[in-house]
């Protein structure tokens, strides 16, 4: 299991089919996905500047629990009179920050360890990949759940601040993503390390660190990017799972997962409050999955290496 078979077609000469895939345009679906994600990033960044209602404190002047397309509340509001649009936009910034932080963390550490394991190989490589296998032996949600509940135990007296809680969640989910990213980086680094230009650099006396960064890494990036995009999607999903167990950021602060989780025991009351963030989650996850696939096809990342 731990031994990755040396790829038979180690020379990444693209086959005809792959060549077509790399030349083809992005296609309308990919552009739609980029457009949607662009909107999400815009909302996340500008959440605090947009003219939105207060996402945390409801107003007593509002009729609580109105549905979609009410005047002033395009997505309605909840039983506390809080505007769903405002909450989902602030939730966007929370959910995307957690996703970006954890995958950034996972890519940095997993990428580095995987690169070393793949390039140096030998005993160190085997030992490192045995470690990834063990980390992968935990179901991801369970590991994240345990880590958050242990690292940030909520005591009634001092609930951790929003930022601190976000960092803990991102750290826990990031830890889960390390072995996945390390594995793919290692598999790719392994095959690229055998190429002639790496030999050439070696024979010119380049230091291992330089070869790893300048020769191997640039070739491994597409594979990492593809997995990182899929990873962002799974972090969004895992955040929702954590929220169900009360382990994402603390209510009343909104995140996509929190908004669904808060309604899950009373789905019929104000359905728009959970349906709106669900649609946001669904479209974002689908876009990220699609782009992950596009990157993989475009750069002819071989499945065998995954």
């Amino acid at each position, binding site marked *: 299991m731990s031994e990755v078979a040396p790829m038979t077609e180690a020379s990444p000469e693209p086959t005809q089919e792959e060549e077509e895939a790399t030349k083809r345009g992005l296609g309308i679906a990919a552009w739609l996905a980029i457009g949607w994600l662009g909107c999400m990033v815009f909302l996340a960044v500008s959440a605090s500047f947009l003219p939105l209602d207060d996402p945390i404190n409801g107003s007593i002047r509002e009729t609580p629990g109105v549905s979609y397309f009410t005047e002033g509340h395009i997505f309605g509001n909840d039983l506390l009179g809080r505007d769903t649009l405002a909450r989902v936009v602030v939730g966007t910034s929370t959910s995307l920050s957690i996703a970006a932080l954890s995958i950034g963390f996972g890519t940095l550490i997993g990428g580095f360890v995987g690169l070393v394991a793949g390039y140096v190989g030998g005993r160190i490589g085997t030992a490192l990949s045995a470690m990834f296998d063990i980390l992968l032996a935990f179901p991801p949600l369970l590991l994240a759940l345990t880590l958050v509940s242990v690292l940030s135990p909520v005591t009634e007296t001092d609930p951790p601040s929003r930022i601190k809680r976000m960092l803990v969640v991102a750290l826990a989910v990031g830890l889960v993503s390390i072995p996945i990213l390390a594995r793919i980086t290692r598999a790719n680094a392994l095959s690229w390390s055998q190429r002639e230009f790496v030999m050439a650099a070696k024979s010119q006396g380049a230091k291992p660190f330089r070869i790893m960064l300048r020769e191997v890494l640039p070739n491994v990036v597409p594979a990492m990017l593809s997995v990182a995009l899929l990873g962002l999607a799974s972090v969004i999903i895992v955040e929702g799972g954590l929220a169900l167990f009360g382990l994402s950021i603390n209510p009343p602060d909104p995140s996509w997962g929190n908004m669904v989780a808060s309604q899950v025991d009373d789905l*019929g009351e104000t359905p728009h409050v959970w349906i709106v963030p669900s649609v946001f989650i669904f479209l974002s996850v689908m876009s990220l*999955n699609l782009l992950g696939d596009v990157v993989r096809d475009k750069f002819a990342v071989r499945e065998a290496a995954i």
Partner: protein
Amino acid sequence: MTWLLRRVAQLVVVVLVVTFFAAILTSLLPGDPVKTIAPFATPQDRARISEELGLDKNVISRYVDWAGNFFTGDMGTTYAGAGLQGDSISARVRESLPTSLTIVFYVQFLTLLIALPLGVFSAYRQGSLFDRGGNGMAFALVALPTFVLAALLKFWLGLKLDWFPTQGYTKIGDGIGNHFKSVAMPVMTLMVGQIAIYSRLLRSDMISTLQEDYILMAKAKGIPSRRILWRHALRPSSLTLLTVAGLNIGALVSGALIVERIFKIDGIGGLIYTAVGQRQYIAIQSYVAVIAILYVVINFLVDMLYSVLDPRIRNV
């Protein structure tokens, strides 16, 4: 044979590491762990708990003690806020585990029952409307998180149409009709994504198998297509499916935790939900260990099955 021994050794090592992680969880608690476990306990009670949990000993001997108890079926008890001992954790696990396993079993069984014909048929009719439609649908369904799908089903089938109970679990002994009704929505939720993944995988493997010479040979001999598909092509095409089935157990376990939470089922996911809410860290330790061991063992069994299906693996 050496292959089998190596796999078993690997299994043992992973189980040890996984349980070790679970056993030292309490040391990761920031500050004084006893204070978090029993915040309102008197100093005497705190000292007693600390001794019971072996917090004053070093990590290794604490693990040995814990593992000795754990593997003989004694998982300790829960602690109330004032430091009093509560229920036995092992009893809770024994009660809930069958529920979770039943659900996971139904899901796996029904998934294969539906995904196999779907995959085979869309490979056979590659490029047809059915195939392309299936592809698009699978892509969308994979992007639908378990908790969103569970919420949608609970809302429509449970609340609006009132077909199934929205929460709780009926044991098979307490009425077979009610049993199936109570698991219907959780099982459906978990099946959808799995079917999408499995049928697509099987399809792509089938397509490459169908291009092999021996399939052409079988066709030339006049063997009916149904027999070619099911008897000649399916077995060599099912390897990737199996590997992914093994890896997918992780996703399935995560999914089971989520549906049990949403449909308020007292499986191991329900236990974890309660334990997290009440900060029962000692209980969480055992639950984590139980699930992780199950996961590792199932993966191991899938590996075994893999070698039965493809004799070449055994010699690697």
